[in-house]
């Protein structure tokens, strides 16, 4: 279940860095000039996902988790991540 929840967190993280950038709060640095800001936003999102996954994997290795709660949280995180990458939503935060 750690892989699933981490995937949800990763989806949210991608959206989170995008919406921060679009709202003018924090722009992840451009890591590859020709690609522009997307290289920083997505790299930050991927790194956040990998860190969350590693932490969850370590903590849940020998622990029973409530599958229903994990599934619900995963879906909520995915929906939020997708909403934050949806350009019409940026206008609300921009």
């Amino acid at each position: 279940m750690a892989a699933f929840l981490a995937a949800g967190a990763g989806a949210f993280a991608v959206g989170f860095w995008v919406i921060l950038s679009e709202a003018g709060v924090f722009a992840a640095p451009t890591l590859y000039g020709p690609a522009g800001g997307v290289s920083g936003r997505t790299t930050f999102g991927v790194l956040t996902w990998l860190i969350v996954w590693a932490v969850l994997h370590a903590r849940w290795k020998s622990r029973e988790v409530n599958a229903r709660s994990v599934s619900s949280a995963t879906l909520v995180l995915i929906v939020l991540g997708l909403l934050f990458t949806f350009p019409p939503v940026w206008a609300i935060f921009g």
Partner: protein
Amino acid sequence: MLFSDRSLWTMFHGIVLSGAALAALVAALFFVLATRPAGAAPVPLTPRQARWLSGATILAAVTLWLVVIVGTYVVFPLYRVPPPEGATDLALYPRAMLLADPATAWLHSFAMEIKEHVPFIAAILATGVAAVGARNPATLVNDPRIRAMGITLLTICLGLVSAAGLLGTFINKVAPLQ
């Protein structure tokens, strides 16, 4: 030359890699759905079935990462090259070409913006399923909660990749990388 390097990269990204990712996602979804337990008893997977199930989920994740890496670091930079000062023919500068016409500007501000980020989410979700499918394919088939999540995430991935592919087709139709 019939096709430029730019055009070939676009086709490689959009048709070869994205097409392979879509096929692998459908295959993975099919394997999980087709091995549905008839009752409460778990379905024993043969080594071959387990290999195919693992293989399909891993292939989906790997191809999706290739799609986003090639898309972000090869095709997108070609798409967003700014035209030189005073250029009137924007055929070689797709981003500028789309933004120059109010009727097509949405293809950048909506379609391309979605394509920049959403495929990363699809790749992350597919990797989550692949991690479970690779480590324990029998759990992906037999544990009702994990199975449901696997099917849900693969279906979301399929929807996201299809949508991104469709938007890419629209963009390439109006402002192709020539």
